[in-house]
């Protein structure tokens, strides 16, 4: 094995030599620094590869060949090799990143960086207490040097505060070391660990002093004001080092020394989680990117500290969990700091400039999603294992704290991401791309994905996962510069292929999954066809759209809760990027994401508790839950309800669906909402037999009914066409929730029919209205009107859509209504049923308003020349119309297989079929017969009227009787604005925005808390020192 002393020698030696170099040797000294770091990296890589392949064994090296306490011992094992590789890679790329500064600065940064990384390496290897102190000091001085590199007042102040705090921390450490030596006579850590149970009281306190120094070095909340000032004032490259390299190293030193102090593990957990939650909370109101990243770093490191402290609970998973989160933090934080250096501005809103460089934007998104804990990044798997272990050990408060802290982090990170993707700027400043900055950041992004993929192979819950969709997405991403129609064709071909792969199997094995897979995949293909109407390259659309569909596909094929959650998060990520593409979508996408993350964490907690009770992560194990059924069911159903936008969790939907692009709205409204429905169905199948779920189902029934009412009523008062349809979706999903909650055969049949129907007619309506909006340029219905003349195809589509939605026979919506009646009578849920029926009637209000305001009435002058909707939208629309027609004409083709499928869970109460006649316990219905009867009658009457009025003259637009006046302009003659004013007066109180106010109040409350908490950071270095001392004393008294 290559001796680690080489690192020490080269580092120290070159450091001193380069210090003698002058300005003229700047280029050479820069090159030498780079080579030295490359050398360090090569050594670490050699070790790691040796360990992984089994060639090398862990080894302890003693200096000068003597044994301790006469020499210093260094230990190189797998962990040390991995961590030193990470740090050295960071060092190498830091030297690259700082190239300009190194070449220009006469302050000889090169040696500083070299010595710093040498010290960090040694800190990882050494097993001598005093040695740690020495290298700790070197690290401190080197970092101060880097901080003071900038020549401004803030940097000077920050550097000075850092020195002050570090001095105090080093003092604690040295005192501890001295006392340990006094008590045990040795400075070797291994000696200390061997005698840890036989320590005398002074030694215990000495160990405590050492540990507390290390904790303080890791910047716990609230004794970390000095650290935040450092992060804010220093160059972001330094921030990357402090956060990535120094943080990692200190964590490892803590990890090394922790076994000596078993009494400290509870405190570590507390310290860590308080830091995690507190830091992320206070970060909410932060606007300065570097300081924000500082809060985030401190928070993440706090989380890892708590994971170290949770070792008694996590057992052998500690290293996996800690390393997964550490790795993510390492890559993402360094990447973000480097990006910050490239942007070079003081406000996070200025990061909108990233939009000019798509690669940087993608990297920013990657790092943000990695930090939150989305797949495929390592933090996803780390958090999964952490939550499962915490649940299994009954640590519910800790679980809650971890999820709360993660959620808070999600708030500010996604706000930031939203700014960069969407915030409008009149002059976006140019970000100069130089190779020395772009290479490290890009490489860090790629390594993050690689690390994630590698971690996923270690998870035994993912064995059945199909990576094909993700590979396909990566390929599409590479060719993202091509024109849209090429990518569209490839995407459709890919989805067709995937459908061919999985649908035939599902048809024979699992009808439920077949139906939902059909909705997701075939619906996806149809909405993609509409994408041909878009010109240009449509950058960034296809990878994320396919990501959403990949997530949906994974959801269908999941056999373990991990796969299910993996698919759920992928779907959320893809849909976020799709939604934020709309022109005014920034706040709505944030709202959507936060509700989604909240719901996802509820699902995660539910799965964790399920694992705790059954010990298995198979999806089928959900049916074995008995003790914690209520809480698990509630958590999971609430999580799914954030996706189906049930009342209380619905405020994101109108904005998100209404402002999305024309072909995205049908994707998210008609298709994505069904993912929540699918989840609820799976949940109810697994846990429905449990008696406790009957109570929850009763509540869900009322919730669904009221959601339906509020959604439809709110839709009637909208002036924006897409918002109207969005509220309508909320209501329809309320129907479906109500029907599912009935947990009877007819109820579920109703729910499945409604799901299918909603997919069909909502896709038609959103596609058509989206196409109309594309032509007309506005969402407001009162600005449209009379478009039946210009857009007959669109009119017919909307007409069929609204007839189907309203449930008027003979179209397919009536099937749902008939089933609903019978289901309500069967279940005796009369009052909820009456509310749902009332809401169904209210649907007529907005359906009429939609078609009348847009297509009938008076044609406005500025719209006289609009042409019919794009043929690329018309193709999927009319395909879906054919689907509705087939369903309407032959409902038994759909209802009979559904009945058979549902019969396996609810055998009683099925419909009896006699040819086309369906009979239930209460009534009967012959779908085809009704359609034929009505069809013949209608055609007869129409023909008769046409014959009678064959000599009628067609008149022009304003040829109406107007009480002896002439109508002036279309705008004054088209009645559309607030036509339900009377209704609003009578019933408008039902849709008062109380829930929106509630969530706004929650947001304000959390922000106030954050603002209040920020007050402890008043910038005074002496006060910060006081905090450090107070923290020390507090922890001391907590421990002893």
């Amino acid at each position, binding site marked *: 094995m290559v001796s680690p002393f080489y690192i020490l020698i080269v580092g120290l030696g070159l450091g001193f030599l380069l210090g003698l170099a002058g300005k003229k040797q700047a280029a050479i000294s820069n090159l030498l620094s780079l080579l030295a770091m490359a050398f360090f990296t090569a050594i670490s890589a050699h070790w790691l590869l040796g360990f992984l392949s089994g060639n090398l064994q862990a080894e302890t090296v003693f200096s000068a060949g003597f044994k301790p306490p006469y020499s210093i011992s260094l230990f190189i094992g797998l962990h040390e090799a991995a961590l030193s590789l990470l740090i050295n890679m960071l060092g190498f790329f830091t030297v690259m990143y700082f190239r300009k500064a190194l070449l220009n600065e006469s302050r000889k940064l090169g040696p500083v960086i070299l010595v710093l990384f040498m010290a960090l390496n040694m800190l990882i290897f050494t097993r001598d207490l005093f040695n740690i102190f020495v290298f700790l000091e070197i690290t401190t001085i080197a970092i101060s040097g880097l901080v003071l590199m900038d020549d401004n007042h803030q940097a000077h102040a920050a550097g000075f505060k850092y020195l002050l705090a570090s001095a105090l921390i080093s003092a604690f450490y040295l005192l501890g070391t001295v006392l340990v030596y006094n008590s045990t006579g040795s400075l070797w850590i291994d000696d200390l660990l061997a005698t840890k149970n036989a320590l005398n009281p002074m030694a215990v306190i000495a160990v405590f002093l050492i540990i507390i120094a290390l904790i303080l070095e890791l910047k716990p909340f609230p004794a970390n004001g000095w650290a935040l000032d450092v992060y804010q004032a220093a160059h972001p490259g330094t921030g990357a080092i402090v956060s990535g390299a120094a943080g990692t190293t200190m964590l490892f030193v803590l990890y090394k020394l922790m076994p000596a102090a078993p009494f400290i593990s509870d405190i570590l957990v507390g310290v860590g989680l308080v830091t995690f939650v507190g830091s992320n909370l206070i970060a909410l109101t932060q606007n300065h990117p570097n300081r924000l990243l500082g809060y985030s770093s401190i928070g993440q490191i706090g989380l890892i500290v708590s994971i170290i402290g949770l070792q008694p609970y996590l057992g052998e998973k500690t290293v996996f969990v800690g390393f997964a989160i550490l790795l993510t933090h390492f890559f993402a934080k360094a990447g973000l700091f480097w990006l910050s250096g490239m942007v070079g501005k003081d406000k996070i809103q200025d990061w909108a400039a990233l939009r000019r460089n798509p690669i940087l934007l993608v990297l920013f998104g990657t790092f943000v999603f990695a930090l939150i804990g989305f797949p495929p990044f390592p933090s996803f798997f780390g958090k999964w294992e952490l939550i499962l272990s915490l649940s299994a050990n009954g640590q519910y408060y800790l679980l809650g704290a971890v999820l709360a802290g993660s959620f808070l982090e999600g708030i500010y990170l996604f706000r930031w991401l939203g700014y960069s993707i969407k915030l409008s700027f009149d002059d976006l400043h140019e970000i100069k791309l130089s190779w020395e900055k772009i290479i490290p950041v890009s490489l860090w992004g790629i390594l993050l994905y690689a690390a994630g993929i590698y971690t996923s192979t270690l998870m035994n819950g993912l064995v059945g996962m199909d990576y094909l969709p993700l590979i396909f997405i990566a390929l599409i991403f590479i060719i993202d510069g091509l024109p849209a129609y090429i990518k569209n064709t490839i995407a459709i071909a890919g989805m067709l292929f995937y459908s061919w792969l999985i649908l035939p199997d599902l048809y024979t094995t699992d009808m439920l999954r077949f139906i939902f897979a059909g909705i997701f995949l075939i619906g996806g293909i149809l909405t993609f066809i509409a994408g041909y109407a878009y010109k240009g390259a449509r950058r960034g659309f296809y990878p994320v759209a396919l990501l959403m569909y990949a997530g949906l596909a994974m959801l269908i094929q999941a056999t373990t809760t991990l796969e299910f959650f993996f698919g759920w998060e992928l779907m959320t990520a893809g849909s976020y990027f799709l939604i934020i593409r709309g022109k005014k979508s920034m706040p709505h996408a944030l709202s959507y994401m936060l509700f989604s993350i909240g719901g996802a964490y509820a699902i995660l907690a539910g799965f964790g508790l399920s694992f705790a009770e059954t010990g298995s992560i198979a999806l089928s194990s959900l049916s074995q839950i008995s003790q914690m059924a209520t809480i698990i069911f509630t958590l999971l159903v609430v999580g799914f309800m954030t996706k189906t936008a049930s009342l209380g969790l619905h405020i994101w939907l109108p904005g998100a669906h209404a402002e999305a692009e024309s072909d995205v709205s049908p994707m998210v409204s008609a298709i994505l909402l069904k993912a929540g429905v699918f989840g609820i169905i799976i949940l109810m199948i697994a846990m429905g037999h449990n008696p406790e779920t009957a109570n929850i189902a009763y509540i869900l029934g009322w919730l669904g009914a009221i959601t339906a009412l509020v959604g439809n009523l709110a839709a009637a008062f909208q002036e924006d066409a897409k918002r109207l349809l969005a509220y309508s979706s909320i209501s329809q999903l309320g129907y479906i929730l109500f029907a599912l909650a009935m947990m009877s055969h007819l109820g579920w049949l109703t729910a499945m029919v409604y799901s299918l129907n909603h997919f069909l007619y909502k896709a038609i309506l959103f596609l058509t209205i989206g196409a109309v909006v594309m032509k007309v340029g506005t969402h407001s219905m009162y600005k449209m009107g009379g478009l*039946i003349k210009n857009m007959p195809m669109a009119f017919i589509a909307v007409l069929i859509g609204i007839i189907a939605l309203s449930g008027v026979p003979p179209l397919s919506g009536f099937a749902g209504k008939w089933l609903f009646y019978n289901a309500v009578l069967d279940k005796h849920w009369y009052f909820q049923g009456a509310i749902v029926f*009332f809401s169904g009637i209210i649907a007529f209000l907005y359906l009429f308003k939609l078609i009348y305001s847009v297509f*009938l009435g008076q044609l406005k002058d500025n719209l006289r020349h609009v042409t019919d909707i794009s043929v690329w939208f018309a193709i999927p629309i009319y395909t879906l119309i054919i689907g509705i027609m087939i369903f309407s004409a032959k409902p038994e083709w759909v209802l009979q297989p559904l009945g058979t499928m549902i019969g396996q869970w609810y055998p009683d109460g099925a419909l009896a079929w006699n040819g086309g006649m369906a009979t239930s316990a209460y009534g009967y219905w*012959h779908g085809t017969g009704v359609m034929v009867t009505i069809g013949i009658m209608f055609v007869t009457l129409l023909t008769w009227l046409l014959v009678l009025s064959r000599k009628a*003259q067609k008149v022009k637009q304003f040829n109406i009787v107007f009480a002896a006046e002439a109508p002036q302009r279309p705008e004054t003659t*088209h009645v559309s604005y607030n*036509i339900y004013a009377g209704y609003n007066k009578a019933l408008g109180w039902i849709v008062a925005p109380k829930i929106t106010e509630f969530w706004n109040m929650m947001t304000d409350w959390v922000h106030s808390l954050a603002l209040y908490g920020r007050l402890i950071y008043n910038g005074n270095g002496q006060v910060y020192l006081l905090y450090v001392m107070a923290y020390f004393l507090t922890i001391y008294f907590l421990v002893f």
Partner: protein
Amino acid sequence: MDFDLKRLGFTLLGLLIVLNWGLLMSAIMRKMGARVARRYGIPWRQPWVDLVKNYAIRSQITHGVMFYLGPVFRFSGGVGIFLFMPMIIGSKLWLNYSFQGDLVLIMYFQFFGMLGMALGAGEGGHPHSAIGISRGLSQFTVIEVPLTLAILSLAIQYQTLSLVDIVEAQQGGFQNWSMWTNPFATAAGMLAILGIMGHSPFNLVKAPNEIPIGPPTEYHATFLGVLRTNAAVLHVVEAALFMNLFFGGATNWFEFIIKTFLIYFWSVFVGVVFPRFRIEQSVSWFLKVPLVLGIIAIILFM
């Protein structure tokens, strides 16, 4: 096939009877209203004369395709309800096509005509059409609340949604009528019918003083003829629905005529006495007493 033609024949005959009875009934009501106001009233033949006149008018204009569909949808709505409604119980011949769908079909088919009319009138481009339609829709949605509750209550009581079965359960004397066995549902339903028939106090939709122009003026000639034809059929058929639900149905045409007349007369009677409601007033009104009556009707049979 043989039976089908026979059924079709009797259905068409029934439609003819209903149409003529509807026209006669409207003449009776108009005459009664006039006599109350101390006028002589129209001659008996007037509704027929009006129809013939409307169909015979030669000059006619149209605003577009949907304009045609308005009256056709409306008339289809009326005829459709007729088709799916059993007229005379006890005879297979006068049951029309009620074997194809139950009460739910009839209830939802009421919207067919209304929706189509709304679309057709909207095509005319007249602003007052839109005002009228929005009022009509607003009112209709709340009218359905007590009606649905009443029907649900009946369905629970008789354990069926089949109109034929409900009527047959009411046979065997006055005491079996839903009027006596389920008075609250009857009350809720009879309050709902005031709204359906469209007389005062719920006639804001087509109120002549409010909307002097709009659908009645835009629709003329054969269009108006179709709408008037439909009005005749629809009133009878709606009354027949309530007859079947609450008053024991009809076993012969004589009983049919008497009962539909009385039910329709109830709405005219109230209309003559009371003034008009505004929309928010009528919406609130239906969600007070009728709603409570409907709720009680359900509770009693739960």
